[in-house]
C-alpha cells in the first residue's frame, strides 16, 4: 500500500487512527497496530507477512537469549546466530541472483562456458529496513545499551508499525521503548498540528516536486541515454539529484507525520543534505538513520577512524561498499558505495592536510557536484549506461542543437526544476520550518493536500520501496 494512494488516505488511515485512539488498553492498541501494519504490508503481497513476523520474532527471542546468557561466549553465540539468520534472509532474497549473475559473468571472462540459472526470487519490499531495525535491537542488547523488551507484542509493533515499515527511517528500539511503555491515552492537538505539517509537506515533496521532475526530465532522458548530450545529461543527473531527495525525504516526512498522528515521535532522517560543506557532513545529513546505523554497527566495530589512515580508509571503503549494496544488488550500487567511500577517505586526508576551501559557497558547490556524479551510478541501470551519461556530462558527446536545447529547457516543468534547486539550497527543510498554528496556515496546507489528492490517480511508488 502506498502512502500516496486513495485507499491509504481515505480508508486505511482513518480506520487505523479511529481504532488506535479508541481501543482500551495498551495491549489492544499494540495488537491493533501490528495487525493493521501487517495488512498494510500484505496489501503488496500477503505471502511475505509471515517472513516479516518470523524475522521480528527471531530478534525478540535472540535478544532475550543474549541477555539471559551467563557467559560472554554464549552471548556472542546467540548474536552470531541471529546475525546469520537475518543476514541470511536478506542475502537470499536480495543477493542470490546478483551472486549467480556475477559468477556467470566472471566465468565467461575467464573463458568458461558457465550457465547458472537465475532463481525466481521475489524481493520482499522493506526487507532491508525491517531487518536492520531488528538487528540493531539485538546488538544493542548484546552491548548492554538496552534491556530486552519483555512484551513480544510491543516488539512486533515496533518492527511492523506501518509508518516506517517499508522505507524507513530505520528506527532503533531505544528510540521507541519509552514511547511504547507510556502510550498517550488520547490524541493531543499539537500531535495533529505537527503531524499535519509533516504529512502534507512530505506528500507535496513527493507528488508536486519529485514526480514532476521525474516524469518530465529524469525518466525520458535516462530512457534515451545513448542520445544524451551535454545539457541533456546534466539535466538528467541534476534532475535525479532533486528527485531522489524530494522523493525519499518526502517519504520520511510522511512517516514522521503519521507517527505523530499515532502520538509517537520518529527521529529526523534528512537535514538539508545538499547544503553540506563536505562529503562527511553530507552523510550526517542524508538518510541519517542509515548512515548512523552503518557508523554504529559496522564502521566503529571495524575500527572506525581510531587507527592509521590506511585502516581508516579501509574501514570507510568497506562500510560504504556494503552501504551501497544495501541499496540494491547491482554493481552500480557497489560502485556508488565505493565512490562515496573514496570521497570520505579523500576528505579525511585533505582535512588533515588543511586542504579545504575557505569559501563556504565553494565547499558546498564542490560537495554537491561530487554527490551529483555519484547519483549517476545510483540511477543508471548498468555501469556502461552510467559511463555514457558521465561522458555526455563531460562534453564528450557534444552540445545539443538549438531546437533540441529549447525543447529541453523551455518547458513548464522547468519552473518546478528551478524551484527545486532554490528549495534545496536556500529554503528551510521540513524540520526547520516554523510550524504555524494559524488559520491561514491550516488553509494553505489544506489546499496543498487537496491538490496532491487530485493527483493521486497517477500512481507512483516511492523510490526507496525498491530497496
Amino acid at each position, binding site marked *: 500500500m502506498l502512502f500516496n*494512494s*486513495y*485507499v491509504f488516505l*481515505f480508508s486505511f488511515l482513518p480506520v487505523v487512527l479511529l481504532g488506535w485512539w479508541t481501543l482500551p488498553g495498551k495491549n489492544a492498541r499494540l495488537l491493533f497496530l501490528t495487525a493493521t501494519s501487517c495488512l498494510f504490508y500484505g496489501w503488496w503481497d500477503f505471502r511475505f507477512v509471515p517472513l516479516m513476523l518470523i524475522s521480528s520474532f527471531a530478534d525478540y527471542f535472540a535478544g532475550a537469549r543474549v541477555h539471559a546468557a551467563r557467559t560472554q561466549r554464549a552471548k556472542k553465540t546467540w548474536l552470531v546466530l541471529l546475525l546469520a539468520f537475518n543476514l541470511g534472509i536478506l542475502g537470499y532474497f536480495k543477493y542470490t541472483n546478483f551472486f549467480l549473475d556475477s559468477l556467470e559473468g566472471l566465468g565467461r571472462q575467464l573463458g568458461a562456458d558457465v550457465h547458472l540459472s537465475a532463481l525466481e526470487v521475489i524481493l520482499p519490499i522493506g526487507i532491508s529496513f525491517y531487518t536492520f531495525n531488528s538487528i540493531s535491537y539485538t546488538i544493542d542488547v548484546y552491548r548492554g545499551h538496552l534491556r530486552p523488551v519483555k512484551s513480544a507484542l510491543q516488539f512486533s509493533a515496533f518492527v511492523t508499525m506501518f509508518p516506517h515499515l517499508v522505507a524507513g527511517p530505520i528506527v*532503533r528500539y*531505544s*528510540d521507541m521503548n519509552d514511547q511504547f511503555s507510556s502510550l498517550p491515552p488520547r490524541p*493531543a*492537538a*499539537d*500531535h*495533529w*498540528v*505537527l503531524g*499535519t505539517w509533516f504529512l502534507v509537506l512530505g506528500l507535496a515533496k513527493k507528488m508536486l516536486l519529485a514526480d514532476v521532475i521525474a*516524469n*518530465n526530465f529524469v*525518466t*525520458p*532522458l535516462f*530512457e*534515451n541515454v545513448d542520445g544524451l548530450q551535454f545539457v*541533456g545529461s546534466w539535466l538528467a543527473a541534476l534532475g535525479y539529484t532533486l528527485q531522489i531527495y524530494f522523493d525519499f525525504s518526502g517519504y520520511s516526512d510522511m512517516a514522521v507525520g503519521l507517527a*505523530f498522528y499515532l502520538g509517537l*515521535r*520518529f*527521529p*529526523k532522517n534528512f537535514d538539508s543534505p545538499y547544503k553540506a560543506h563536505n562529503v562527511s557532513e553530507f552523510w*550526517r545529513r542524508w538518510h*541519517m*538513520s542509515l548512515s*548512523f546505523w552503518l557508523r*554504529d554497527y559496522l564502521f566503529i566495530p571495524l575500527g572506525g577512524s581510531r587507527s592509521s589512515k590506511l585502516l581508516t580508509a579501509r574501514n570507510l571503503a568497506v562500510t560504504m561498499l556494503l552501504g551501497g549494496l544495501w541499496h540494491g544488488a547491482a554493481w552500480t550500487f557497489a560502485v556508488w558505495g565505493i565512490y562515496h567511500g573514496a570521497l570520505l577517505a579523500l576528505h579525511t586526508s585533505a582535512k588533515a592536510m588543511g586542504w579545504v576551501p575557505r569559501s563556504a559557497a565553494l565547499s558546498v558547490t564542490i560537495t554537491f557536484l561530487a554527490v551529483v556524479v555519484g547519483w549517476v551510478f545510483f540511477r543508471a541501470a548498468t555501469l556502461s549506461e552510467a559511463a555514457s551519461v558521465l561522458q555526455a556530462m563531460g562534453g564528450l558527446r557534444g552540445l545539443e542543437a538549438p*531546437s*533540441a536545447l529549447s*525543447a*529541453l529547457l523551455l518547458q513548464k516543468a522547468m519552473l518546478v526544476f528551478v524551484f527545486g534547486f532554490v528549495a534545496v539550497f536556500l529554503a528551510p527543510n521540513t*524540520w526547520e520550518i516554523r510550524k504555524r*498554528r*494559524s*488559520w491561514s*496556515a*491550516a*488553509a494553505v*496546507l*489544506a*489546499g496543498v*493536500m*487537496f491538490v496532491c*489528492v*487530485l*493527483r*493521486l*490517480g*497517477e500512481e507512483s511508488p516511492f523510490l526507496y520501496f525498491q530497496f
Partner: protein
Amino acid sequence: MADQQDVPRVQARIDPRDRRFAQAFFGIFLGSCFLVAAASVVLDPLATFGTGAVTPVVWLDRDQKAQAYARLWPKPELLILGSSRVMKARPARVAQIAGVGSAFNFAVNSARAEDHAAILRMVADIGGGRVTHLLIGVDPECFHDNSPPDPRLEKSRHFRPYVDGLLPATKLNLGEQLLSLQALESVEKSLRHVVFGQGAPRSGVFDDLGFLSYPEWEEQQRRGVFVLAPNVQKSLHEYRIRYANFRSLDPKRLAAFREMLERARVLGAVVSAFIPPLHPDMVAAMQDTTLAVRTAETRALLASLERERLLEFHDFESIAAFGGRPDEFFDGAHLTEASTTKLVTKIYQRSHAVQ
C-alpha cells in the same frame, strides 16, 4: 547516539490554537474533497455513475458507434478502425477508393488494442459474414503499458458481451472517479456549459456511418479564420503527458491486437494497417520523449505481423509520403478529411498494385 534523539517535543498542555488549526485543516480539506466528489456524482460529467443531471462532457462514442453499426443493413464490407486520428476517413469515399460497396468508420476515441479486439468480436457476432476489408490506424498508444482501458469500453452496454478476458479485473478506482484532476476538470467543464452555456460538451458529431465532423473548426476553416498553431500546442501538452509514462508496448495489448488480426483472418478480411501521422511540429517538439522509440517499436511490430501475413503494413515516414501537408491538420494529431483521403488513396493504390 544523541544525534538520534533530535525529535521535536510535543506539549503537554492543549493550546486552543492547535485545536482551531486541526479543525480548520480537516474542515477545509475534507470539505473540498466532499464538494468535488459530490459534484462528480451528481453532475456525473464522465457518465460514470449513471446519475447524470447534465449532458456528459465525454463522448459515449463506443456505444454510439455500436448502435449505428447495429442499425446498418446490409452490414458494410469495409470497417475503419483506430482512434480519433482516423475519424475523418469518410466511409463512402473510402469504400469507393477500396473498390467495395460500403464502409463504416468504427474508430473510437483513445482506442486501445482491447477496443479493436472487442469491436471485431462484435462484428463477427452480428455482421462478420460481410467484412472483406479492415483499414486500421495503429497509434503506438494503442499498446500503452501504463494507461488503463478506456472507461467508456468498460461501461459500455453494447460491448459488455464482448470484453471477456480483455479488461483487467475491476479495481476499485472510486477515488479516481470521484477525486482526481480529470474529475475536477470534467465537473468544471460541465458546470461552465450548464451555467454559462460555454463550450459545447463535445467538439465533434458522428453521422450514421461513423464519420466525424468538427462543426466549430470546420466552420472556421470555411470562413478562413482557423488558426492551427494553438491547437498544435494543446495537443503537444496532452501527448507529452501520454508519453511521459509510456515505457514499452504492453504484452497483453499486443495479444489483444493479435487476437483481432486472427479473427480478421478467420472472417476472410484483408487488413491494411498504418500509423496515423502526427503534425511535424509535434514530432520535432517531442524528441525528448519516448514518442520516437515507441513509434519505431510499433513500426517493427507491424512489419513483423506483415511477414506473418496477418496484415499489410503501409509505412509513411512523413506526411509528404502520401502527399499530405502540415496545414492539413486540425491540431497536432488529427488530419483533415482531405489529408486522410490522400493517405487512404495511397494505401489502396499500393495495395492494388501488390495484388
